[in-house]
């Protein structure tokens, strides 16, 4: 037997297995069929990307203030530019934009504060965000107090309205969803039946129907003095609809927690609320992050449906702008802009949820 006493020193990987060329060979050109598909893929990509860039950037018109400033060869971003503040604030009076800006700034700070882990006092920020912020935002946006001129809700619109609908929907749907999910698993027959009926009713009806009911039928049943603002009606409809979905997502999480945990907690003498609050819910919610965020993202996109009841959310205001006779025919630009804004928000939510999953991972992940 030959023993080599010396340790063979570390050596770099053989040439031909590292570097970009090796990567290309290993991943894109390993074999004739794969090479063919790679080339085909590149060609398709070329066909798609080049004209898009050509249209959106190279041939595009950026400056000006009317349709005459657009050559119509490429995209006419002049349109989006001229309407930009409307896309953000809707038909909100321009001299009152500062009020919406303050609300935007507060909203962004709250989100940033909650998202950045290093910042302290998270609990108080949450309390502020849930109790004080809605009141401040309402007073600022709606006015009528402290000498602020009143801006009625049918002038609200654009991204502002989209964010409002989405955040109220999310903040409202999560707690209602949790309560409904617990109620559906409850031993008490009346509570359980109520929750089942509630969830199945709202889940069984399309959101469009709910919005239509809220905007077309409800005012006929209510006496005129009791007429509820149409934005509020939409908000209530949207929140209840989403909470039914949320309840089912959370119930999925609850069912994934082994029963033994609940029983063990009960054996320790914990009350129902302690067991739920300290043992079951933290695990279930953590597990359900992808599902919850999925529901949030779909809610964010569902807010565009309020367009059909005459509220100008981001997409609605883009469409209204497209019907201005001086800007007819720029629908592609308008829709691309709306899609881009929606994509930014949805993508950020998705990335944040992935980050959250990693941060809360306690090693149970498989």
């Amino acid at each position, binding site marked *: 037997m030959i023993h080599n006493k010396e340790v063979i020193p570390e050596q770099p990987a053989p040439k031909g297995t590292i570097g970009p060329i090796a990567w290309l060979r290993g991943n894109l050109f390993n074999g004739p069929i794969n090479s063919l598909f790679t080339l085909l893929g590149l060609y398709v990509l070329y066909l798609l990307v080049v004209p898009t860039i050509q249209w959106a950037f190279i041939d595009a018109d950026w400056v000006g*203030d009317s349709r005459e400033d657009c050559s119509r060869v490429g995209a006419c971003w002049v349109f989006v530019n001229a309407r930009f503040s409307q896309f953000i604030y809707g038909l909100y009076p321009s001299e009152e934009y500062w009020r919406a800006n303050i609300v935007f700034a507060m909203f962004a700070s709250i989100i940033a504060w909650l998202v950045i882990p290093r910042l302290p006092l998270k609990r108080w920020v949450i309390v502020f965000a849930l109790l004080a912020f809605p009141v401040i935002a309402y007073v600022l946006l709606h006015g009528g107090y402290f000498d602020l001129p009143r801006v009625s809700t*049918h002038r609200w619109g654009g991204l502002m309205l989209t964010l409002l609908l989405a955040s109220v929907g999310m903040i409202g749907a999560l707690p209602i969803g949790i309560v409904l999910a617990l109620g559906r698993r409850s031993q008490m027959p009346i509570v359980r039946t109520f929750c089942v009926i509630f969830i199945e009713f709202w889940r069984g009806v399309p959101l469009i129907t709910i919005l239509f009911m809220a905007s*077309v039928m409800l005012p006929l049943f209510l006496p*005129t003095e009791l007429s509820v603002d149409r934005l509020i009606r939409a908000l209530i409809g949207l929140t209840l609809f989403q909470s039914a979905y949320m309840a089912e997502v959370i119930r999925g999480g609850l069912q994934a927690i082994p029963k033994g945990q609940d029983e063990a907690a009960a054996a320790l003498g914990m009350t129902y609320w302690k067991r739920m609050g300290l043992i079951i819910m933290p695990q279930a919610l953590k597990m359900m992050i992808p599902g919850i965020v999925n529901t949030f993202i779909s809610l964010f996109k569902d807010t565009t449906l309020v*367009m059909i009841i005459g509220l100008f959310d981001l997409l609605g205001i883009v469409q209204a702008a497209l019907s201005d006779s001086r800007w007819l*025919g720029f629908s592609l630009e308008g829709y691309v802009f709306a899609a881009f804004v929606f994509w930014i928000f949805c993508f950020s939510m998705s990335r944040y949820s992935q980050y959250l999953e990693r941060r809360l991972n306690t090693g149970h992940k498989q």
Partner: protein
Amino acid sequence: MLKKKHLALLVSAGSITLAGMTTAQADTLEDTRDNGAVRCGVSDGLPGFSAPDDDGNWQGIDVDVCRAVAAAVLGDADAVDYISLNAVERFTALQSGEVDVLSRNTTWTTTRDTTLGLNFTGVTFYDGQGFMVSRDLGITGADELDGASICIQSGTTTELNLADYFRANDMEFNPIVFDTSEQTVGGYQAGRCDVLTSDTSQLAALRIQLDNPEGSMILSDVISKEPLGPVVRQGDDLWFNIVKWSLFAMINAEEYGVTSENVDEMTSSEDPNVARLLGQDGNYGEGMGLDADWAYNIISQVGNYAESFDRNVGMGSPLEIERGVNALWTDGGFQYAPPIR
């Protein structure tokens, strides 16, 4: 109890036929003055009729009706709360009192006038279904369209009118149906049909969206009657009169040559018609609970009918719709307002 009865009534009716149910509030004029603004239902964006401009102000021929009513009632044409409504909810919004005037490209028909508890106050625009064809085809009239393939937007009365017209004239056609107006234009542009049909006011808006608007023309033939006008609730005749005469004032102003430019000089006009219109001779606003300068306010702030038409849909706008049947009766059109006296 009362509400339950209403509910049962509604369900049994099976449709929203609510005549008389929401006539409880009757003094719209008083409410409007308290509110400080006219609550006006407009569309959620219809070129030339009602759409927000770059500064977020509503513009359009329908919008001008709201502005005229506000000028007459409150003396300020800007005192309007615009509430955008889609086609489905527009009547409910009016019935339930969410809006007090509906000026939203609404066709005056028997059913709407008699069964919905609503009243049409006049006609702001005589619309009708027309045809757009490529100039290359050399077609000059709708009777030459036998065998044509025609692009239509689905689910509208347009489809039915078209079928009726071709059957009545014993002609064949090949319908190509699209979902939205943008798709319809796209189909026409791509050459999937020879002809595009829609209401003439819409055709003008669709034509602008073509790559080469000059290459297509709108035929002068019209195959349906679509008189568009403002609507109010039944049961408040005073308000009905105000909205009706706000429009009449604009049409009369055009007839007597009073415009927003010359209205101040016209106040000293010798013409008795003008003097009565502008409140220089008698107070014709009294019967409506308005001041003598009600029509003066409308004309100085909104303009006469010709100005509104021209600015929003006519030659002064991108739509470039001819006056056609919307010309004054003195010019061979249909627009005719009863005299103010």
